[in-house]
């Protein structure tokens, strides 16, 4: 089953902490969005594998944009 990881707020992608194809555990940091001088980490909602990362560092994103797709077991 696929799960979309959505941007919780608008901002710039500061850091990607995972790579496509990599395994990820629930609550692991996937990436960090910078907005309003603060860094907001975005965590994996479940265990799984990163199927696709839709953004790269430096990208501007809007709230609810799809950041990544996670395949859950």
């Amino acid at each position, binding site marked *: 089953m696929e799960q979309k990881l959505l941007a*919780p*707020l*608008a901002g710039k992608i500061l850091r990607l902490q995972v790579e496509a194809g990599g395994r990820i*555990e*629930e*609550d*692991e*940091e996937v990436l960090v969005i*910078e*907005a*309003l*001088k*603060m*860094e*907001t*980490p975005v*965590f994996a909602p479940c265990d799984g594998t990163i199927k696709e990362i839709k953004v790269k560092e430096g990208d501007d994103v809007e*709230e609810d944009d799809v950041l990544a797709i996670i395949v859950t077991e």
Partner: protein
Amino acid sequence: MRPYFEHMDDLGHALREGEIKRARANVKAIEQVEAEISAAVEHVKDAGFPTEKINARGQLTVWQRLEYLVDPGTWCPLHTLYNPLDNPEGTTNVIDGLARISGKWAVVIGFDNKVLAGAWMPGQPENILRAQDVAKRLNVPLVWLVNCSGAKLPDQEKFYANRRGAGTPFFRHAELEQMGIPVLAGIYGTNPAGGGYQGISPTILFAHEKCNIAVGGAGIVSGMAPKGEFDVEGAEGLIEKARHFKAQPPGRVETHFGETGFFRQVFETEEGVLDALKEYMREMPAYHPRFYRVAEPVRPKFPEEDLYRLVPIDPKRVYSFEQVLARLVDNSEHIEFRPDYGPEVYTGLCKVDGLLIGFVGNRQGYLGKGYPEYADYPAMGGKLYRQGLIKLNEFVTHCGRDRVPICWIQDTSGIDVGDLAEKAELLGLGQSLIYSIQQTDVPMMLIVLRKGTAAAHYVMGGPTANRHNAFTLGAATTEIYVMHGETAAVATYSRRLIKEKDAGRPLDPIVEKMNELAKQYHDNSRPLFCAKKGLVDEVVPMPDLRRYVQAFAGAAYQNPRSICPQHHLMLPRIIKG
């Protein structure tokens, strides 16, 4: 009212594996700062003569006296690193803190007899006044360990006179006594002049048999007839007089116990004096905590050590305030005031040792679509907006009505700015909060958990609320400044940059100055700086924060000046609706 407090709403959750793993670097960084602070504290403790030398003279050091005097595990030091005028000794030469003696909370303060025999020093009057303010705000006894050789004479111009000078604490003792707050003193050693007033100004005086207190000591008495200058003949005379007065200093026990009766009791041993203080403290008027408890005391569900993982030392990182609060309060429970309004601030009631405390804190992170309601830009926690300021005004006012002490936890970058913020009345609402605090007569404490910035540092129960804030704590993560250094550099130099650019001159020198200013802000906002300058009253290791909140709660409820019966509390009913 039992059903309101017996089982309140759950707060926080246990840390998950991923959270623990992620926080490793953060734990290390915080521990490193705490190690620096701990080293600075040891430096203060080691100031002056070694303990062995003092003990060889038949005396205990102030630290040994404190250890004997206070109930084990209750010492909450304050102002340990306070040294605002940079004394080379590294201390203002008084040691103070909150502690229980014979089961009762008191503010305890003593001169460090290892350093210049406990002399007055620059910065000391302000330190003493701060300790006296804690006693005054919490309405608890002030207990002195007097051992004061008088002024450090070469530095007298820095502390002797002035509005808040070395004589002000004597007036403050009288003020405490007028308010019904007892000042107990155990007196040791030679206490001439200022030391004499340190000895005579408290309420009850217990003397060690070898102590003395006097208007002037041997040094002054023997030097009272100078010719206008010094010569060898005069020096010989001084030697003779000084020898006499050293052997027979004025104000000995035979005078102030035998003749004047100023000393209530005299003791052969140092411990005897401390035992008398303990005995009198045992008899101090105080409510049993059960009088005010709303539930039985319980530890938080989650360990205080989690705070190392929960509070990011990087000020740009967000975290959960509720998770932090869950490590400070009984059974990690709360009832929240207006959870659906002013999302940038938490306001709620929690129990600490079974006693009701109002908690206020800045939430962090994105606050969601449509907030603030008066603007089209997004809102980030840490900042205060219209709703948050209104909620804080309401909460503080209700706490005042219900006589609930307040613990503020700051991590704030300021109040929202701009035209829309002005139209939304934020300037007025900030000052309204100051008014609300001022007319709310309950003890408050503050933890500057991370950022204390701009006017928000004032209005959120900051130490500037002189009549309310009993004390302010910092942590390894604390930083206090009017604004971030980079913001300050922009504010200071942006016009200059335009000028230089228009004149065709290179920008490098201005950029260099901007970086210098940003660094200066960084250096002068760190925990050690804050402690030294008194921006906080103590920097506390993360796991000790709850212990200080417990001390605050215990002291605030020990002998409050006014009472709200539990069944007349409105705040829990307002929350329930």
